[in-house]
């Protein structure tokens, strides 16, 4: 179980220091947890706080009761936290095989790579020697990013908008990836998303808005309120959301 206690995070901007996360406290149990909310609400920041990319200004983080607040990115990864970036990082020379090997922590065969890549709809034989660079499309990079998290098989996996840029590959397949992952590994799967179909698979939903925890609870409680609040805020936005989710 992952626990955040009174997490605050501030960062310097052109207009002085901005509070990005304001006193966030929550416990994330095993199963699917979706984090949603408006842009700029602090969703990606919280993912980076959990994975150790950012250090909280104040507050504590516990993993299975152990205080990991001062753990580095590497120490958190070793403690069992994985993080799929919203924008996958490109390299020069590092191949898909390299990234899967590093993620799994062992030398891998084509068949091992196939186990992970086939889940994200990529054929290992076609991709294993490809460099992770601009020659791959945004969707391909995103799927490789997801495969690298699968290859780690840790008890906490965070995906920052995993559906963004995924082309010609249905949401259904993406959701199956998370379901299979949960069956095989268990643990907590935390998904940052705006998409209803992703939110609909979650056991629990966290709503972050303006750096504050606006709501957190079972999907059945949060989703109806979430859509109601959207209907009350902006008709253009709610109409466009309906189009997307139909």
């Amino acid at each position, binding site marked *: 179980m992952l626990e955040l206690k009174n997490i605050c995070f501030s960062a310097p901007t052109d207009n002085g220091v901005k509070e990005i996360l304001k006193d966030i406290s929550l416990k994330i149990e095993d199963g699917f947890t979706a984090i949603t909310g408006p842009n700029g609400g602090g969703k990606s920041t919280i993912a980076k706080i959990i*994975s*150790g*990319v950012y250090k909280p200004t104040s507050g504590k983080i516990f993993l299975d009761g152990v205080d990991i607040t001062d753990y*580095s*990115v*590497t120490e958190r*990864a*070793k403690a069992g936290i*994985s*993080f799929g*970036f919203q924008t996958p*990082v490109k*390299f*020069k*020379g*590092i*191949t898909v095989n*390299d*990234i899967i090997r*590093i*993620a799994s*922590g062992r030398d891998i065969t084509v068949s091992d790579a196939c186990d992970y890549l086939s889940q994200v709809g990529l054929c290992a034989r076609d991709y294993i020697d490809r460099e992770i660079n601009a020659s791959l499309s945004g969707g391909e990079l995103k799927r490789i990013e997801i495969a*690298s998290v699968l290859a*780690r098989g840790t008890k906490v996996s965070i995906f920052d908008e995993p559906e963004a840029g995924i082309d010609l590959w249905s949401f259904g397949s993406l959701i199956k990836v998370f379901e299979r992952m949960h069956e095989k590994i268990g643990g907590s799967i935390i998904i940052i998303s705006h998409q209803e179909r992703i939110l609909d698979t979650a056991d629990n939903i966290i709503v972050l808005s303006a750096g504050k925890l606006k709501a957190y609870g079972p999907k059945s409680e949060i989703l109806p309120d979430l859509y109601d609040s959207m209907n009350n805020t902006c008709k253009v936005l709610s109409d466009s959301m309906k189009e997307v989710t139909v």
Partner: protein
Amino acid sequence: MTETEKQLLKIIADMEGEPKGAYNIRANGALRARATTNNIDIRTKEDKPGIDIIIKSGTKGETVHIPVIIEATGLNDLVYNDFIIGDDVDVTIIAGCGIHNAGHMESRHDGIHAFFIGKNSNVKYVEKHYGEGDGTGGKNMNPTTIVNLGEGSHMEMETTQIKGIDSTSRVTKATVGKDASLVIKEKIMTHGTQNAETDFTVDLNGEGSSANVVSRSVAKDSSTQTFKSCVNGNNLCHGHTECDAIIMDNAKVNAIPQVNANHIDAALIHEAAIGKIAGEQLTKLMTLGLTEAEAEQEIISGFLK
């Protein structure tokens, strides 16, 4: 052959035991072993140190290994190797030099390689340079490569300076004929106070000729590197030169790419990029469980792969 020599041969030429095909092993400035085939002859030069490698027209699928190893300290080894390659040839040439200097005097190898390649031939040339040894004596290499590429021929040069070379000055001059193409891939890593200079000049003389000169390098510690590349488009041709360097610590890297169009149909591009390892690349690999140092190592090995 000593264990050190065997190890050097493995590193620079991937040789374990006697290689297949023609070979010429030079150790401590003298011939150690040689083999020729029906199609590939190797002769010792009579007027100066070095060898002539003569490859008959029509030779296909053969390899030539010509490694040089130096274990003696204070040896200054200068050789002239000429490759006379006929028409319709398809061969791989594996050169390379390994120095193990445990002494306090400079060990140095200057190889001057000249290629005369006929028509419609395909030549792959692989060269690795490597230095090791605890002594304070320098491990220096200054290769010069001259390429004359005949009509319709293709040459791919892969040169790698793996590590341990204190000082290197590499000069490559190529003349590319009608419909011929040249690809040069250079990889260099320097560390400590090493200095590496590379200087390419390619003359695209033939109609339909092309060249692609690509250098990837990593400069660590207080090492220095200079990359010069000059591609002259003298006919209807395509030329591309690219230098991509990772700079670390207190290193210095200079990149001087140059393209000269001397013909209306010459299409030439140059690119040069120098920068440190991107922070997000390190972070990504650290989220996969690597330490910062391990992540750095993976990025460098991938870059120089």
